[in-house]
């Protein structure tokens, strides 16, 4: 290993833009005159697997792989990914982590408690090793700026705060590499991430809600993926998915029991039960009769 070579890790799950972010970091480092090597694994990304990228830079870099305990910065685009990779960060290094949780299907299949086996936020993990940490709700910041998809630029901005590279190199890398038409929002997100106040308290990960028992509209929040199908097909506007992707019952009284939501939910996550004390059939038949 040549002297003075430094390393950085980016990790996340499929679809978060980890690879694009790592291209931007590499490009900014190249612009700053370093020798840069980058290597990535994006195997089962499309099926929710983890994606990570190693970047090393210096005078003359031999290998792109960051050895354990040596990374300057870890940028985790998802909470569990921060925990998975934290060992790679050097003592006194920095961790930039998104507090969003993307629970992989394999981790939330406890059908008795309806809870996920998913790590909670434990800041001691970082404090013990005297790591500098920034725990960010990047999606919320990006949403405030107008586009949730710029969340990765928020994180990148935070990474930049720990690296001594001229802003001009970052900005030109972003301009060059993000999709056309999104340059402005990504630059804004990048700046927001860079200026992110250290003290901002992260939102704890959303614990999947308990199975709520027999309701007329019964939502299984552990299985629901917030796809919005049920709420869009409901003729009575009973349901709505909120900004966190959580499905809520907004008008329980209006439900007619048509079961469209149940039949079209791809995830078996919504069930309609008849009212608990149905009108007796004979009453229903006689009431208002006389044709």
């Amino acid at each position, binding site marked *: 290993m040549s002297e003075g070579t430094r390393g950085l890790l980016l990790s996340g799950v499929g679809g978060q833009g980890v690879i694009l972010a790592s291209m931007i970091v590499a490009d900014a480092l190249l612009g700053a005159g370093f020798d840069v090597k980058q290597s990535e694994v994006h195997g089962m990304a499309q099926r929710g697997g983890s994606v990570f990228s190693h970047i090393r830079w210096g005078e003359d870099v031999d290998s792109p792989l960051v050895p354990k305990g040596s990374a300057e910065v870890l940028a985790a685009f998802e909470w569990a990914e921060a925990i998975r990779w934290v060992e790679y960060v050097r003592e006194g290094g920095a961790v930039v982590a998104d507090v969003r949780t993307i629970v992989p*299907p394999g981790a939330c*299949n406890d059908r008795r408690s309806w809870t996920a086996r998913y790590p909670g936020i434990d800041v001691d993990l970082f404090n013990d090793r005297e790591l500098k940490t920034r725990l960010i709700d990047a999606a919320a910041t990006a949403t405030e700026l107008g586009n949730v998809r710029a969340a990765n630029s928020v994180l990148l901005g935070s990474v930049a705060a720990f690296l001594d590279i001229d802003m001009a190199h970052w900005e030109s890398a972003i301009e060059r590499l993000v999709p056309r038409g999104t340059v402005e929002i990504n630059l804004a997100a990048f700046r927001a991430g860079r200026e992110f106040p250290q003290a901002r308290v992260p939102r704890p990960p959303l614990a999947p809600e308990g199975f709520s028992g027999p309701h007329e509209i019964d939502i299984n929040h552990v299985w629901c993926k917030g796809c*919005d199908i049920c709420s*869009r097909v*409901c003729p009575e506007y009973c349901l709505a998915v909120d900004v966190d992707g959580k499905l809520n019952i907004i008008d329980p009284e209006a439900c007619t029991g048509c079961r469209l939501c149940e039949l079209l939910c791809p995830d078996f996550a919504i069930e309609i039960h008849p009212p608990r004390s149905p009108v007796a059939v004979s009453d229903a038949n006689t009431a208002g009769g006389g044709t």
Partner: protein
Amino acid sequence: MADVKTYLREWAMPHVLCPGCAHGIVMRGFLAAIDQLQLDQDKVAVVAGIGCSSRIVGYIDFCTLHGTHGRAPAFASGLKLARPDLHVMVITGDGDGLAIGGNHLIHAARRNIDITVMLLNNSIYGMTGGQAAPTTPEGAVASTTPAGNTEPNFDACKLMIGAGASFVARVLAANPIEMSKVIADGVRHPGFSFIEIISDCPEYYGRYNKVGGGADMLTWMARRDAGVAVPLSEKKFVEHVPSSAVPLGMTTGVLERDIRPVFTGVRRQEPL
């Protein structure tokens, strides 16, 4: 009627399919069909190939086999010959069944072996990242046809009628009640039954072709239908129709139903 979850491996849920993927709706519709038929769970064998659609067999509580890419009809044929007492079914995708596995599919149809094939057509290779399939319509964008597909696509049902399938139907995931009924009819039919289920892939097809997410794709699907199916919920379906999608007319319902000798490995004059 029982709860469809009786037939689900609940311990394996939630499934891996993307939010809004219609393959999940088809899975539910299939379980509802089995429930209508009141078949013994241990006598139902479902064979799949490879693809997002084929992943369904991981979650349904029957005798299941997740085989190799395109070969589900071959596994299923062998199984039916060895165990004629089982209700043998295949879940396959358009890439799995019509590209790499097209050959197995046409020969199973030609033999009129008594299996039921459900082909989930989302017009794309979902699992591998949205490459064009033999079902991708001309002009549609896929990861391998960024400027629009220049090839014509298969009509899977015509192909199967030509190959000799004795029951051929097309249904929409957007119309789950009809879907379950037709699947049940196909299972009851003696001989080779082929049901093309128009499913969707919001993650790739929907995104690349700017149709939108799961709900938009269902609307779009209902609009493509030129046959018997009707949109389920006029009110909301219609209001969200995205303008950029060009509907592709197609006929749904049972398109072919014929009784002819069933292949059992020995020569027979009468259908079983």
